[in-house]
């Protein structure tokens, strides 16, 4: 039997990589990729617990709703990024600061 910890450690490593991606990238699309990595690793945790501890369908349904939310979030975020790119011709998040002055 495959241990539960193998899945938990994989999900934790990818969660940390997602956090590092969000902090490291300046490109707004790169930050969006980090968010997707984090959502995927959380989904893996939900499904692993649903398989090994709960053995019901509930964890998988929560993962399904997370996937739906991720799709909506990616569409809205890319629309905002394209709009910013059209008006400012940059998607570097450190240069989009015209509300701070």
């Amino acid at each position, binding site marked *: 039997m495959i241990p539960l910890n193998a899945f938990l450690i994989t999900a934790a*490593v990818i969660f940390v990589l997602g956090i590092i991606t969000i902090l490291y990238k300046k490109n707004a699309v790169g930050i969006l990729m980090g968010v997707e990595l984090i959502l995927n690793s959380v989904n893996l945790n939900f499904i692993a617990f649903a398989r090994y501890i709960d053995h019901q369908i509930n964890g998988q349904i929560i993962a399904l709703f997370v*996937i739906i939310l991720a799709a909506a979030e990616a569409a809205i975020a890319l629309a905002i990024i394209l709009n910013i790119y059209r008006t400012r011709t940059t998607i570097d998040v450190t240069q989009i600061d015209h509300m701070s002055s």
Partner: protein
Amino acid sequence: MELNEILLYGIMIMTILSAAIVTFSNKIIYSAFALLLTFTGFAALYIYLSADFLAVVQILIYVGGILILIIFGVLMTQRMYDLSALTAHNSLWLTLGGGAAVAAILALIIFKNSWAPLVDKSFQATTDAIGSAILTEYLLPFEIASLLLLGALIGAVYIARAGDDAK
């Protein structure tokens, strides 16, 4: 070690390595293509966790939808006026410090916790159960999700279209 365990650990290593490419690659388009391997690896892990429907949904929505959107966004925003800003990053050591802090918290949770006793049952197809659960127990979240998708659709089109004054 059996063959399927070797395959599983190979898939896990492939997923983690491609996620690391997403994180540390200098070109954003390489990150986008490494994300393809990561999403596919997650779908394979879902199959190992006997979530067959979720694996198919993962490939359909993530690989077929979100990844295409991300690559589309990368290609639409490639022509930046400042070429040095294209590959700029924040300070590596600061971000690695932040990641190490999160990793320490997660390691504490995973290894210091005694999880509930594991059940190991045989595989059952989940499509049937998910379908009836969505239409009975989870009917309200299902309808709210459909409303949210409608709102996101209209909102994304409204935000991304060219403004009337820009024409």
